[in-house]
């Protein structure tokens, strides 16, 4: 059984946690831009943590169910409706044959996750269903195409439904402007003034923001720093090109690069940034590796706890 796609105007992509083990061949990892929202979705439905979901950016997306199942919505509030009635994210909903699920436009955040009981059934490419448009890889047809009108995305039908929601205090605050940064890579090559400027300025999300990276606009830094020998680019790396405007490299980032990097936004910081739109303002704030690691493990534990109570 399947959902039939009735409307797809912006960007709706099949994603699992990512395609790993191929970066040495130059392949990016892909995966959910807001990883915690994705993890909560699968936990709400008691799915495998890697079960395929649909990442819906902005909205203007609609699907019709052919069979009963249970779904979860997490991430952004894109003004979703079920048969015309407003529904909120961070919980599960029962679906019956003929139901129409629609995403309109952003109310809170930018990217929503739709998960279904048992996960969407897609053939993995190189071990993953994650769609990377640029590499023509993964997704429903294995060719990197975004979901389009006329596509049917399969799931196992199920009459089992459990009303579940993410505890309110674990729902992220997408209006939060502080994005934590771990100083690393070439951070020591940047001057004290650069560091002060970077952490005391407000940066605006530019129009050049996508799954590959977010280009920011604000006080330039590190203009006098030269290029480096190309090296591997980690998740969240903040690259400073010659114009001094930071670019935060996210899920679909290139594997290597020769621009200096002041550090990396944390995974939690990247999740928050991925929910911001062009024109939004953010601040980079410094954090330490132990603190960022502790916070990440706490977040993962919270998801695990919901999963075990759901079992």
């Amino acid at each position, binding site marked *: 059984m399947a959902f039939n796609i009735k409307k797809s105007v912006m960007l709706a992509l099949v994603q699992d946690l990512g395609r790993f083990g191929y970066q*040495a061949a*130059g392949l990016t990892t892909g995966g959910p831009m807001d990883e915690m929202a994705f993890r909560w979705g699968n936990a709400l439905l008691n799915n495998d943590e890697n079960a395929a979901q649909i990442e819906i950016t902005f909205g203007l997306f609609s699907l019709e169910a052919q069979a009963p199942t249970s779904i979860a919505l997490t991430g952004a509030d894109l003004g979703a409706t079920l048969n015309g009635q407003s529904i909120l994210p961070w919980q599960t909903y029962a679906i019956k044959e003929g139901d129409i699920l629609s995403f309109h436009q952003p109310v809170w955040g930018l990217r929503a996750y739709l998960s279904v009981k048992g996960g969407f059934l897609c053939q993995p490419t190189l071990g993953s269903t994650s769609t990377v448009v640029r590499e023509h890889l993964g997704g429903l047809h294995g060719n990197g195409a975004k979901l389009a009108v006329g596509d049917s995305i399969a799931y196992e039908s199920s009459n089992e439904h459990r009303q579940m929601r993410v505890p309110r205090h674990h729902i992220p605050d997408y209006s939060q402007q502080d994005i934590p940064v771990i100083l690393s890579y070439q951070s020591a090559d940047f001057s004290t003034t650069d560091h002060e400027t970077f952490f005391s300025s407000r940066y605006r999300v530019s129009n050049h923001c996508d799954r590959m990276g977010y280009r920011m606009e604000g006080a330039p830094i590190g203009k006098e720093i030269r290029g480096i020998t*190309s090296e*591997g680019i*980690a998740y969240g790396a903040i690259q400073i090109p010659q114009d001094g405007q930071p670019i935060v490299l996210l899920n679909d980032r290139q594997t*290597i690069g020769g621009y200096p990097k002041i550090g*990396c936004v944390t995974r939690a910081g990247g999740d928050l940034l991925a929910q911001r739109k062009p024109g939004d303002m953010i601040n980079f704030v410094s954090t330490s590796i132990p603190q*960022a*690691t502790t916070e990440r493990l706490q977040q*993962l534990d919270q998801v695990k706890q919901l999963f075990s109570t759901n079992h």
Partner: protein
Amino acid sequence: MTSPKPTIEQVNEEAYLLRFGNHINEQTADQILWTTRQLKRLHDIQDLIPSYTTILLTLKTQAEQPHKLIDEIENILNESTEQAAIPLDQRKTVVIPVYYGNEVGPDLQEVAKHCQMTPEEVIQRHSATLYRAYTIGFTPGFSFLGSTPDELHIPRKRTPRHQVPKGSVAIAENQTAVYPSVTPGGWQIIGRTPMELVDWNSEHLGLIATGDSVRFEAISREAFLTQGGKLDGF
């Protein structure tokens, strides 16, 4: 020969950058190749990106004992300083057939002029060198091969092309490469191979892996076409 001890720096919650000094050379490349092979045997490593002087290593999100794993990595790095050069017969050699000609190598004449030699001499020198794949990136399967002979050094094009045809063989600075798919590109194009460099169905994807040796072999226009080569794209 003893190499300097590589350093290890954590760059985010799950990734570590291993640095092998600042010099791009065969000795460092051998040390990186040896280390990459050892690291592949460890559990709980999600991804490795070997490059000219570094390896970026990412742990799995729920790696069970990261501290123990880091100790094992430290041991491998210590041992890596004592490794002898890796003999050629322990590295894969890939031979790439190339049709060098103006119709598929629109920069061949300009390269010859810049290097003050004939196009035949450019072809001879380019195909007489045994290269090494220092890293892979830019696009899937794009191998950075070094080093071209000094007399073939030439800057990138001032204005990159919007579309470089698949299979194009190009040079820039002291490096050479094959474009495995159609992409924008700024390197000087001197020929084209009929060979597929990326195979989505193979385990390694790319025909060339970091550390491999690569040699180019000049073939005729006829052989190029027989092997499935295409002349369009410019």
